[in-house]
């Protein structure tokens, strides 16, 4: 038995033979190598059977001599299917276009939803997003990944504390948490103001309460600066002491800085390559050249393409090659000292409150060891040293 699939691939024709001596005709066909199957006798002088498409010509020749009549009554198989399809090209194109369209549309952004933001913040976010290309009709695989968008948004808009970015299907969801300026605690309990560390008072500004210290006084940690108990002896009254007491305080910091250091610095030149990846195989789409850099770092962004609601196992991959170069930096003794001072100062300023100021600095000693400079610096800082201490009632 021949394989049915072969019949399908090569195409077959159903024929009807009418006339006398059909059997003789069939025998003759067989002897001439024409394959016949599914022979059925309709009546005395009619039979139907199937032959291969390639045997049609030979069969026609045979019929002429046999005195039978031949009718073609049916056709099946791939060649005919192909012909039919050619005739219905429009339909095929339509199907293809439909899938292409669905594919394209499922990879677009159709909605940008922002939740939890005030109208003006929402407007600003929308503007930023537009700048990043996140808007209706943008292709998802050309956009930054959600984490990067999140990072950029939090960096660029200072009124939001946190923004959650989520891409669900074709919709971007932004969950915004806005910064709320903490309100001054209005109703505070009765309290003293005490020193948070030892200092020499430089100036003071008391809003409420009984100051117990004067300018140029030396105070220790925990010493009461402004008392919350006011009024004369016997007629005292408890109030929440308020005010700012500035005192000179002292800090010591140590900085260790190497003279020579090597950095990897990006030069700003980069090159992109785009791929369509299926499994482990990736097909380059754009960017076929080798990166023209001798030192570079690569950055991979991989996105699954979608069809309708499903993620396909096909990925759009973007590889960014960033050129970097080694930069060697070496300081002289003076430069290193300068740099160390700068670093220490910056570090200290980061720790201090905004109303504090550094009034003096002095290098205690600087040593050179193992190619590093070690600097100890003493700072004089004027800052608010008052911190509240509640008065425990019932004493």
């Amino acid at each position: 038995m021949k394989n049915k699939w072969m019949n399908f691939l090569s195409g077959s024709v159903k024929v009807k033979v009418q006339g006398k001596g059909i059997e003789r005709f069939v025998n003759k066909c067989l002897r001439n190598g024409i394959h016949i199957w599914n022979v059925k006798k309709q009546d005395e002088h009619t039979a139907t059977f199937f032959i291969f498409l390639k045997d049609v010509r030979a069969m026609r020749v045979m019929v002429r001599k046999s005195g039978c009549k031949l009718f073609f009554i049916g056709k099946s198989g791939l060649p005919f299917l192909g012909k039919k399809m050619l005739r219905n090209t429009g339909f095929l194109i339509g199907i293809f276009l439909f899938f292409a369209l669905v594919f394209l549309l499922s990879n677009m952004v159709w909605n940008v939803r922002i939740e939890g933001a005030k109208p003006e913040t929402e407007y600003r976010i929308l503007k930023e997003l537009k700048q990043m290309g996140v808007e209706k009709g943008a292709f998802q695989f050309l956009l930054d990944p959600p984490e990067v968008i999140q990072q950029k948004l939090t960096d660029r808009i200072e009124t939001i504390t946190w923004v959650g970015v989520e891409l669900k299907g074709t919709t971007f969801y932004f969950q915004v948490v806005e910064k709320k300026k903490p309100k001054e605690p209005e109703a505070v309990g009765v309290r003293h103001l005490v020193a948070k560390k030892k200092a020499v008072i430089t100036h003071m500004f008391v809003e409420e309460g009984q100051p117990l210290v004067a300018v140029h006084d030396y105070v220790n940690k925990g010493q009461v600066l402004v008392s919350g108990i006011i009024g004369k002896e016997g007629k005292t009254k408890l109030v929440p002491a308020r005010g700012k007491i500035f005192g000179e305080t002292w800090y010591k910091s140590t900085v260790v800085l190497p003279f020579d250091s090597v950095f990897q610095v990006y030069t700003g030149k980069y090159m992109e390559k785009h791929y369509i990846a299926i499994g482990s195989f990736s097909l380059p789409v754009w960017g076929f050249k080798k990166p023209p850099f001798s030192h570079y770092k690569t950055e991979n962004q991989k996105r699954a393409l979608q069809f309708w609601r499903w993620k396909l196992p096909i990925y759009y991959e973007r590889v960014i090659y960033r050129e970097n170069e080694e930069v060697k930096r070496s300081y002289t003794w003076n430069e290193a000292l300068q740099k160390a001072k700068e670093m220490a100062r910056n570090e200290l300023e980061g720790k201090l409150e905004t109303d504090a100021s550094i009034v003096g600095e002095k290098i205690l000693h600087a040593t050179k060891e193992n190619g590093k400079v070690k600097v100890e610096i003493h700072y004089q800082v004027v800052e608010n040293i008052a911190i509240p201490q509640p008065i425990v009632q019932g004493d």
Partner: protein
Amino acid sequence: MMKKWRQQVRNWLTNQLELPADLVMDLPRITMIGHIHIYIENHRGLLTFSDKELRLLLKQGQLLVRGEQFVIKTILPEEILLEGKIHHVIYLDE
């Protein structure tokens, strides 16, 4: 006379050397699956065929198959596969 003698030699050969009879003696090999399929090898051509009857030429004599709803599933120069309801398989000697 000669023909008969050759036949006898062949008969003897099959018996003594245990060769398959259909090869040596050019006999048809008929395989039936229940009464729905019949597969005949070594025939010599179609004589008549209708949906109730199939007559095949053999090397010696004819084979007549009777039944209903006959369809020749495949036919090759020496093989034939018939499908239908088979009632009788008859040898006609000549």
